[in-house]
Structure formats: C-alpha cells, structure tokens
C-alpha cells in the first residue's frame, strides 16, 4: 500500500492553502483539464498520463485473471455431507448468505456513486476492471450457492438474506446509509460534496472490503485451517487477492485527493471516519453473534471481536488516524494468510501464474 503508517492524512499541509467556505464551489479550471481528480467532468486524455499508478494497477489486475470454472467444488460437497458439525453448517449458511449479496452491493456503488466522480481515464480503466471482478465474484458466490444449497426454496431464502436475516439486514442498512449519502450528487462541486464522496469511498474500502469481507474471510480460512471446504477457500483466495487490490486502489484515490486538496481532511472528517468504522465493527460483531451462536470450537465470539478490532485498527492506520482499539490478532490461521503457500496439484489448482507475458526470444539474457 502506498499509504505508509507514518503518513498522517490529518496533519498535512492543509494550513498553507487559503481556506474556502465549505459550501463554495471549488476552482476546477486547470489549462483546460480537470485540476483535481474529484473535479466534475469526463477527462479523456491518457497522454500525458496524470496518474500512472492507476494504469499500473489496472495492468496488474489483468495479469491476475481467473475464472470460476477453474474451481473444483467436489470436495466441498463431501465435506458438507460428512464432516461438518451443525454449528459449522449454520456458520456456512450465514456466510454464503452474506456473500450472496455483498459483491453486488459493491458493484452497484461502484457504478452509481464512484465511477462518475473519479475524473481520470486511467483510474476509470481500473474501475471498469474492478467492476468485472465484482461480477466474477458474484458469479463465484452464485455458483457456490447453487452447489452448496441444492434445495431451490432454501437457496432463494439465502439470496433474500439481506431482507430476511436480521444480522445481514443490519449490515445492509449500514451500507445503504452511506451509499445514499451521495446518491443525489451528480457533481462534486463543493468541499462538502467531496468529503461526502470520500466518506463513501472509505466506507466501501475500509468497512465493506476492508472489514466485512475480512470478517467473512476469517470464517473461510478458519474452516480451511481445519481442512474443510477447499473449493470455497480456493475461490476465496482469489477473491481476497482481488479485494486487496480494490482496497489499495481506493486508498490510493483517497491519498491522491488528500495530496491535491489537503483541506478536505479536517477534524470533523476524522470524527466521521471514526464513527463510521466503529459502527461497522459493531455491525460485523452483531453478525458474528449470529454466525457463531451455536458455538464453534476454535473460534470464540470474544476472539472474533478482538479480530475485528484489530482489523479496524489497521484501517485507521492506513487512513492516518490513531488506532483506537489496540487489539492484537487472536487468529493464528489469519497469520497463515500472510505467508506464501505451497500446495499440491492433486488437491488444488494453481492461482499464482500470470496472465500476460511479454518479450521476444533471446539467448543471452540473465536467468
């Protein structure tokens, strides 16, 4: 990530620029181009490229193309049949119910709220790619649910989770609150608009992708640490890799906005972020209470709380805010996610190989 820890968004050189009233329109003229990334409009020129970092992110994303067809769910079905305890079954049902709609919400927000306001063609290339990846994730979870829940009625129930299951509905409410906050804006003309936009982006990067999904991944990796549901874990690995990239992109946009308009990041904004992330932690904890309510050995509710706080602290650090929980990661199996893996092709397919290789035949290069 480009946002290093020592980098504080809120102790920037904000004081050097002339303060403007928050409601006043921002000066957006700059030699015929957008001056800031959040200036309204549809900038089309790629050369000279203003933000090559986004173009590189776009290219790297393409190298990590995967398809749902590569994932083998056959062992999962055997696990579900024979190895899962009722408490774990409940956990899995809740989890897939969350996944069923989670990525669709992200896609919608991307199209309806983010794309139009990020005014750089190279960044929009990345967003287009991200949109495809979100669709891929939706396809993955669709295929997963079709496989995991053979009963048609039960399956429809799972897809309706956002309405039916209170712990998921609560997450939904939280999301829609932030989504709708800028739904009516078609241009970010004032600082207030821009702050709202940034909060929306933080909500999606830090709370949904960076907290709700991190919570969900923890359940998946917990199961895998017990050797269960390798198909789910294989797909999740790829989803996790994509989500990491999405989050990095979003933080890079926020950082770009900060560099361009430091005055956006004031104390009020910091307070809003704190409130938002705290609320997200509570939401995800309420979900955990539901998911773990039947008691799953190796994953206590208390550890889950601590894990969520730990993850939230990381998001605070990334945003240049002081961590507020001071919690350590309690899950050994999440530490495993930070480590290179070495597996066996009898068991799982390869996710490491790159798509897109360049160059010409040569005989004297170093190797």
């Amino acid at each position, binding site marked *: 990530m480009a*946002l*290093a*820890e*020592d*980098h504080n968004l809120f102790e920037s050189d904000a004081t050097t620029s002339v303060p403007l009233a928050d409601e006043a329109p921002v000066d957006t003229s700059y030699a015929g181009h957008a001056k800031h990334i959040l200036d309204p409009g549809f900038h089309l020129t790629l050369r000279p490229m*203003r*933000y090559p970092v986004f173009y590189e*992110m776009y*290219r*790297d994303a393409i*190298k990590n*193309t995967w398809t749902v067809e*590569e994932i*083998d769910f056959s062992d999962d079905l055997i696990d579900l049949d024979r190895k899962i305890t009722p408490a774990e079954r409940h956990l899995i049902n809740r989890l897939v119910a969350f996944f069923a709609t989670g990525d669709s919400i992200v896609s919608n927000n991307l199209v309806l709220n983010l794309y139009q306001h990020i005014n750089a063609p190279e960044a929009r290339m990345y967003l287009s790619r991200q949109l495809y990846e979100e669709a891929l994730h939706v396809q993955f979870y669709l295929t997963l649910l079709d496989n995991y829940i053979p009963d048609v009625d039960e399956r429809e129930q799972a897809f309706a989770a956002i309405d039916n299951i209170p712990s998921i509905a609560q997450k939904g409410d939280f999301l829609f609150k932030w989504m709708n906050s800028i739904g009516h804006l078609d241009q970010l003309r004032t600082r207030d608009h821009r702050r709202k936009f940034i909060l929306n982006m933080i909500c999606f990067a830090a709370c949904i992708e960076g907290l709700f999904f991190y919570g969900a991944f923890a359940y998946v990796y917990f199961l*895998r*640490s017990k*050797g*269960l549901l390798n198909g789910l874990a294989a797909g999740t*690995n790829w989803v996790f*890799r994509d989500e*990491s*990239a999405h989050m990095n992109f979003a933080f890079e946009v926020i950082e770009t906005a900060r560099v*361009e308009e430091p005055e956006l990041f004031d104390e009020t904004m910091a307070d809003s972020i704190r409130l938002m992330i705290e609320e997200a932690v509570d939401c995800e904890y309420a979900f955990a209470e539901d998911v773990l309510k039947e*008691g799953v*050995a*190796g*994953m*206590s509710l208390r*550890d889950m709380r*601590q894990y969520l706080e730990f993850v939230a602290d*990381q998001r605070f650090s990334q945003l240049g805010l002081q961590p507020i929980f001071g919690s350590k990661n309690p899950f*050994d199996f*999440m*530490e*495993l*996610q*930070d*480590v*290179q*893996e*070495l*597996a*066996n*092709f*009898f*068991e*799982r397919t*390869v996710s*490491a*190989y*790159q*798509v*897109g*290789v360049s*160059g*010409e*035949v*040569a005989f004297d*290069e170093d*190797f």
Partner: protein
Amino acid sequence: MTITESDRTGTETAGDGAASTMRVQKRDGRFEAVDLDKIVKAVQRCADGLSGVDPMRVATRTISGLSDGATTTELDELSIRTAAALIVSEPNYSRLAARLLSTFIDKEVQNQNVYSFSQSIELGHQQGLIGDRVLEFVHTHARKLNDAIDHEQNNLFEFFGLRTVYDRYLLRHPELRHVIETPQYFLMRVACGLSTSPEEAIGFYQLMSSLQYLPSSPTLFNSGTIHPQMSSCYLLDSPEDDLIAIYDRYTDVARLSKHAGGIGLAYHRVRSRGSLIRGTNGLSNGIIPWLKTLDSSVSAVNQGGKRKGAACVYLETWHADIEDFLELRDNTGDESRRAHNLNIANWVPDLFMERVEKDWQWSLFDPKKVPHLTDLFGDDFRRAYEEAEAQGLFERQIPARTLYSRMMRTLAQTGNGWMTWKDASNNKSNQTGQPGNVIHLSNLCTEILEVTSNDETAVCNLGSVNLGRLVRVADDGSRHFDFERLGEVVRTAVPYLDTVVDNNFYPTPEAAASNARWRPVGLGLMGLQDVFFQLGMPFDSEEARTLSTRISEEIYYWALSTSCDLSMKHGAHAAFGETKAAQGILQFDLWEGAQVSDVERWEMLKDRIRQHGLRNSLMIAIAPTATIASIAGCHECIEPQVSNLFKRETLSGEFLQINRYLVRELQTLGLWDDDMANAVKRAEGSIQNIAGIPEDLKLLYRTAWEVPMRSLIDMAAGRGAFIDQSQSLNLFMESPTIGKLSSMYVHAWKAGLKTTYYLRSRPATRINQATTGTQTRPGSPSPSPTPEPTPTKSFSDAETLACSLENPDACEACD
C-alpha cells in the same frame, strides 16, 4: 508474546476466569468443567526435553478458542493446532504438536481395542483392508514383529509430517473412519508387505522409521493391503490413430490411476485437425476433443478417496496440433478446447532447438502422413524429418522461434507445458541399446524415462533417500556428509524396490509385460537443501555442486552394485541383453565430459555387470517427493528452499513451515525475536533485505527465487551423469519474460538435461498482509507528498515485489 499478552484485551472475562465457567463434553457424553491444570499437564508431558516451548502458553490459548460444550476431541484437536501455530516463535513447537498428535492417534487406535501391531493387522484384515499373505506372515511372527515396534521413533516427526501420515496414510476403519494403525504400525505394515522373513521386515521397518529412506506414496498407501498397487508411474504410448484405440486408452488410464498411479500419456500418433477420415469422408477435429474427454475422465477417477487422478500428455513438437495443444491450460478462450486438469509437456527434438537458434522455419506434420517419425530419434529422426519436409508432406510451416516463443508463454502463464528433450532422453538411456526400443515420453513428473510401445506400458516404483539425515557431527564439532551410511541405505533400499516389481498388482497386461522385461526402479533422493544448510554451503557454490555430484555418483554406484548382486541371486532382467549396460556402457559414459571419482572401482563394477547382468534396467530417478519429504521433515528432492517461511495447504488444512536451520542460527546470534519473525514474514520469507543479518547467512539462506537458475541447471547437469532416468527439475522465475525463459531453456538443453518440470512464477498482485501490522510493500518507496502523484513501481516488478507463491504443484504419485 508472553502468556500474559495472550490474555484477551477485550471487555469480557480474561483467560482463567473463562475456564471455570466453560464445560467440555467427554467421549461418554458427560459434561465436565474445563480444567486448565489438566490441559497444562497433558501438554507438559509431551514437552519433555524440548527447549523453548511453554506448555502454559499452549494451554491458555487453547482455552481461549474454546466454546462452551465443546467435545474433548475438539479440545485435543484445538491444542494440537494451537501448538503448531506457535512454530514461528520457536520451531520446537512443531515437535510438541507432533507429540500431542501422536498421543491423540494412540488414543484413537486404542479405542478400537488395538494395543499391538499384530492386533492392528488382524483388525485390518477383518475389515477387508489387509491381504491374506500379510496376515499370515504377521500371525506367524507376531512376537518378533510386535517387539520391534519402537514408538520412540515418533519423536523424529515434525508436526506437518505426522499430520500428513495421520490424515492420509494410516489405514482407517471402513465405516467408523477411525485410524486403526499408529504411525509405527503403519511403517511395519509397509515393511511386511515387502518381506519374506521377520528379519527383513524389521530391517526395512527400522530404515523407514529412522526417516533416512521412504518409499513412494503408492507403496506407503498400498503395501500389505488387498490392492498392493505400489508403483508410482505409468507411461503409456500414444494410442494408434483409430477410434477404438483412443477409447481403449481412456480405459487403461482409468484403470491405472484408480490405485494411486500417476499417468504419462503420449498423443503423437493421433491425426491432426483437418486430416481426412476415410471411413466417413469427414475431416478430423484433431487431438483437442480427445484430450478434453481425457481431462474429464481423469478427474472423475478418485484414487480411493485419497486424491484425484492426474495425468500428463506429451506431444512431439512437429505435430500439427501443437499450437492448440499449448492452449489447453489457458483460462480464457473456448472452454470446449480447454483441459484444466491435464498437465501438458513438449517432447522436443534437437532439430527444433537448432532451428530456433538459427531462426529457421519449422514444419508441422499430420502423423497420419508421417507415422514413422515418433519411433525415431537422433540422426534417424533428423533424416526422416528432413525427407518428409523435402517431399512437402507438412501441413504448414511456421518460424521455429514463433513456436518456441509460444511454448515459453505457456510456461510463464500456466507453469505447464514442460520442456522435455526427446534426443537427450533416448540417446542417454540404458534401454535404447537396440533399434526399435524407443522412449516416447516421460511421466507425470518428468523423472521417468522408459521404453514404451503398444504392447508395453512402462511402470516404475520409486523411493527416496533422505540426505538430510546423513550429516554427522564429529567430536570436534565439524560436520561431514556420511557417505558410508549412504551406501548402506542404498544397499538396503534397492532390494525392496526390486521386490515391488514382483509383488505389485498390475492393472493392465501391458504394464505387467513391460515390468517383467525391464524391471526398472527409481531410487531418488530428498533433503539435498538440508545437507547444504547443515554444512553451510550456498546452493550455487562450487563445493555444493561437487558434493551433489558426488552423492549422486555414490547412489548410482551402490544401486547398480546391489542390482548386480540381485541378478546373481535371481537372474538378470529379461531384456538385459538389449541394454547398453550389457555392452559395458553406463550413464556417465553417455555424458560428454563426465568424470567418475574412482575409475578403478567403476571398471570392476562394469566387469561384474558384464558377467552377472543386472536385475534392473534402470536404477535412478529423482522424483519431486512432495509428500514424503513432508513426512520425513526435509526439503523436497534436489530443490532449493522456496522460502524461509511458508505455509502448506493440503486436504487437511493449512500449516505454517519455518526454516528451522535459519531460526537456530539466528537464535545463536541472539537475533530471533517477534520483530525478526515479522520482518521475515513481511518479506514473504526472504531475508535478503533484513538489516542485521550477517552476509554469510543471507547467502546461505537464499530462496529458490534468489538463487541463479543457471547454477541450478548446471548442478542438475552435473548429477545427470549418474541418473539413468531423469530428475524432476523445477525452475523458478519471479517475473518471467520470453527473453529470459528462452535463454534459460536453451541453456538447459545445451547442458544436456533430458527433462525439466514446472516453471514456477509468482502472482502479479497479492493479498494484503492481514496481521503483520503494516500494509507497506517491502522495498516500495513511501508515497511522495508532491502534488502530482508519483508513479509507484509496478506490482509485477521483481525488485519491489515480494508476493505470495501460491500452489506450486508437485506430483505425489512419484514421491
């Protein structure tokens, strides 16, 4: 972290308080309050003699993960996982976890009223798992065999090894699914399946339980059972260009892979796309639809629930469908022309490599028009190819470099499309001493090279010496490699490999026919990297290469010598007269410039071989050893370490592995602590950019990504002179380009290698680290506060990136 830190910072009750209210459910269904003391004591018993481990820490962490009403089995499992997860802070936690698991397994076995080896065999026989012969053998010698069981040997296991044994190798009750043998019973069962006297069985058991040698997985799975299919590899010639022959081959493949064999299959003889089908006056769709069917067929075969079938298809470079073939593993394009489960390999003639160098055209043929090409190699092939070309029989021509570049791209994108060389493989084989004996392909892991035809399916059974256990420390503290013991291990192991040839269950008559004629075996090695770590030799050093070559020479010498002894006892293999060894030509005679360390010794052996023959036509093959190296707790075969810190993903979950040699050295220097562990983790297992680590350690503990591949190839070529089959040589390149790859594979070809295996590269982007407390990419520049965003370096840039190696594949059939 200390124990106190592991107390929860959260709002609820901390560690001990929770314990008093928490209950566990015992095996008989009764509930009981969790007793911290009891757990601590149980852990303490297993921690005896292990430095640096803290039983209290394991116990408190275990309890914190527990939910109310968990079963005692869940509690046991949790304590094992908890101990195993602490491996980074102190590698001895791996041993502790292994011992806890060992106790757990003992309980499970005893719960079925099995208290001795012979009882385990009896129960296995009752349940229809153990064969009659072994039951009778064990029954007759019960006391001797039971007495020989040494449970202390369990202490040699690292956690991951024992976990693997428990999850996959121990025989289970068919209905209850409980294991019915302990790890030591299991090894004794394997030994008994291959022995005719208790002395033999005990000798072999002791060799295996010392972890100095292990036979391949199929032997471990199946020896002594009712289905003693103990061979690892089957190599099937291409089906004839005929519908029935193609379908018959699917059946063969299914039969052979059912019992844990890995399949190599050639497809050189099947006509290419657009070829006329006389019977129907239609045009052929070429080989791709057939391979698609093979793909489905292979993945449908589940090897006794232990793993899925696996196969590698070989295609000659002149086959007109070669370009479609190279796209089989792509994850884009027409799904009906993709085969995600098949491995693919190129069977490349020298002529092609030469034309790549010269930048000439390459002609692609329909095998229907040139059916003889696949049965020729060397100058005969060259003449026949050029003649066919001159006659204009080719379907089309393309620049050789275009095709070569396509091959390189497939390697970079999929890791697959292995480069194996037809001429080197045939010219340097003991089996090709007479015309008509031709090697048409290698196997699933590119270490087996044996003659095939329509009547002969080549078979090989494998085993590997664990070199990592053969380094000795002298009284003065100096270390040396124990060549004497190496000789003993080889002399003990070879007769068992040979016995497998006789005792094996052959699923097809073609396989039985071939094995009777050639009796090939594949003795390999593992833990070479462990030797280098123990002796302080960097992987690319001159001394490492010399030692590696010397070890392989010694293994080859004693393997041949033992095979000659066996020949004196039981007679030479039927086709001995057709081999080069019969003419006094051994492997190193076929390698340009190869030298032996003791000429006289070899001359005497050659005389002996001429006089008494050999029991086996082939002796040596270095398999990837993925799983058996895990069991033995060493690095895989001839490979440099992939990382100082990585995890293994298997059907039984994920496990952390750390380079214990490195940790010991850093502990000695007082450098190993949480910060250092986190630094290694952040750098994804590399220590090259960590401040404070001495340069000599950095040199020694490089990873496969950091060792020059040239040295790896040259080392492989050095030992190649003593490998009569081949070696599974993986090559590693973090960010491959066509230029680098084409240079590398041309060098490998020129060095005389017969085969190469996977190309391993790393993903372009990676998952954010969740727990190291920072999201900064190692080595990446901090963001600049200037108004224009600074272009940060690309994720795929080798210098800035340390991303995760995910799922490099390895063949287990060949272990």
